[in-house]
């Protein structure tokens, strides 16, 4: 230790010595800075801030109408080897007992078995996590499929660029890389 004492401190060391205790202040500022975001997120998950972002209202699917919204106005999130996902919410107050399940998919499903990801939860607020292959065309449509207890399927589509402009923009960029 006594050796280091006699050496003239380098610029970096001096900076560290002078500012190291300010690390405390910096660290305390972190949760203060994130607090509004924390409460905004809590409100989002409670549904107090509405269904989500870029709500597409009154989509007619069979005899029902539903609203679709992306949870957040942002590009898909990477979830490891499973790929990229985008969280969507839907509200279908007109969905009665006749509705067995509601699905979401990029591109038109050919059958009920490939209807896409299923919406979880109560009809008033359902959620699903939609896989977005990076090769998807930015002008693709996303398809909502309602499966009735009568065994029939009812479908409607929304342009992806309308339901999630950020995803369309992200796909545009992905395409540019290839």
């Amino acid at each position, binding site marked *: 230790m006594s050796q280091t*004492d006699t050496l003239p401190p380098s610029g970096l060391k001096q900076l560290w010595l002078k500012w190291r205790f300010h690390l405390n*202040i910096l660290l305390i500022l972190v949760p203060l800075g994130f607090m509004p975001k*924390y409460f905004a997120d809590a409100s989002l998950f409670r549904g107090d801030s509405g269904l989500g972002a870029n709500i597409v209202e009154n989509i007619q699917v069979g005899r029902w109408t539903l609203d679709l919204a992306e949870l957040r106005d942002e590009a898909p999130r990477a979830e*490891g080897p499973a790929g990229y996902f985008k969280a969507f919410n839907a509200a279908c107050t007109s969905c009665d007992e006749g509705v067995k399940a509601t699905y979401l998919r990029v591109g038109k499903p050919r059958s009920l078995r490939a209807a896409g990801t299923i*919406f979880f939860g*109560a009809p008033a*607020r359902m959620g699903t996590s939609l896989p977005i292959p990076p090769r998807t065309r930015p002008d693709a449509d996303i398809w909502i499929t309602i499966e009735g207890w009568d065994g029939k399927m009812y479908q409607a589509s929304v342009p992806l660029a309308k339901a999630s402009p950020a995803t369309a923009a992200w796909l545009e960029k992905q395409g540019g890389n290839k």
Partner: protein
Amino acid sequence: MARQSRKKSNSKLWFLVHSWLALPIWFFVLIVCFTGMLAVVSQEIVWLANADVRASKPDDDSQRLSYQQVLDAMHKAEPELAVRFFSQPDGSHFALQASVTRADGTNALLYVNPYTGAIQGQRPDFDFEAFTRALHGWWLVPFTNGYSWGWYLVSLLGLPMLASLVTGLVVYKKFWRGFFKPVRTGHGPRIFWGDVHRLAGVWSIWFIAVIAITGTWFLIQAILADNHVTISSEPIVPVIAREQVPQTADGGPAPRIDLDQAARIASQKIPGLDISFISLPATAYSHYSMGGRGWYPLMFQTAEVNPYTRNVDSQFLLGDRSALEFVTESMRPLHTGDFGGLAIKLIWFFFGLVLTLMVFSGLLIWTKRTTQATLAALKRGERPARKRAAASPTTLEAQP
């Protein structure tokens, strides 16, 4: 002679390491300890503050209702409610919690009286429990891509904590004789806080070790998860096959068994299964999921009951765990102290307080030493005094 002086300088070095471990971030460490201490008893604090979360008996011989009876009572009071999940907090003095979706699309957590099924209130927008845990656990930094960097920031503290335990024991000569050493008052604050620090330290050796090791596990857990490494043997429950969902003649929903039937089926199939939480099917192809603590209170057992076929389609019991999972799954309850009711929580709370005090007293000692060291250095003349004081404030005071 030479050996002795080397030993002495070694211990000086250990002492320095010990002194410096928390220092540049002492306030951060202090708040993390403090919020951790609060988080342990946050549920109890809410219980004290908010009458809605208490399970008061209407009269002495009231019996607890079953889950289905509670559900029926709730639907009678509010027909539009969609109940997703029931959970009984650990302790019969807590009201049952029900996660619901309202017709307007908002979610809420309702407090329900387990004896009457009455909805007593809902979790306020400011959720003290969740907030203290989020602050303590990940410093409120949001999870956007895998684990939040706040989680890393906090869990990294496990390492210097472990190091300060080890170095503290090394520099505290014959620490095992310190358990009943009285704290000296009347010799100035330096001596007082030093005695407090050492006394608190020896009594909380076990606790610091537990918190530091489990804290470090949280770091490892995040690293594993962010690299998509899993050590879990928990089965992934597939959705119910289309063929198992019956078609109805009138095009209406297929009949499902109710909550109590589902719970009974699981209890019959799995003796000793405690059902302290149960979730209703989230889709037409979902199970009733339920579970609770097993005989080993640090881990949960779960079962999935098919609402159409009445089969237990999947289960994850204590016996299904690997030896490694017994260790890793015990880490979280060991950290939070929520595995043995109020008594354990209070012990964790008390030692959490002691730990907070350790950080604080450590800082006070350091401040006193630094002031003295700085003064001493200044007195010695104007030579390189300022540099010396700044570069090694503790070297002059290294003798404990």
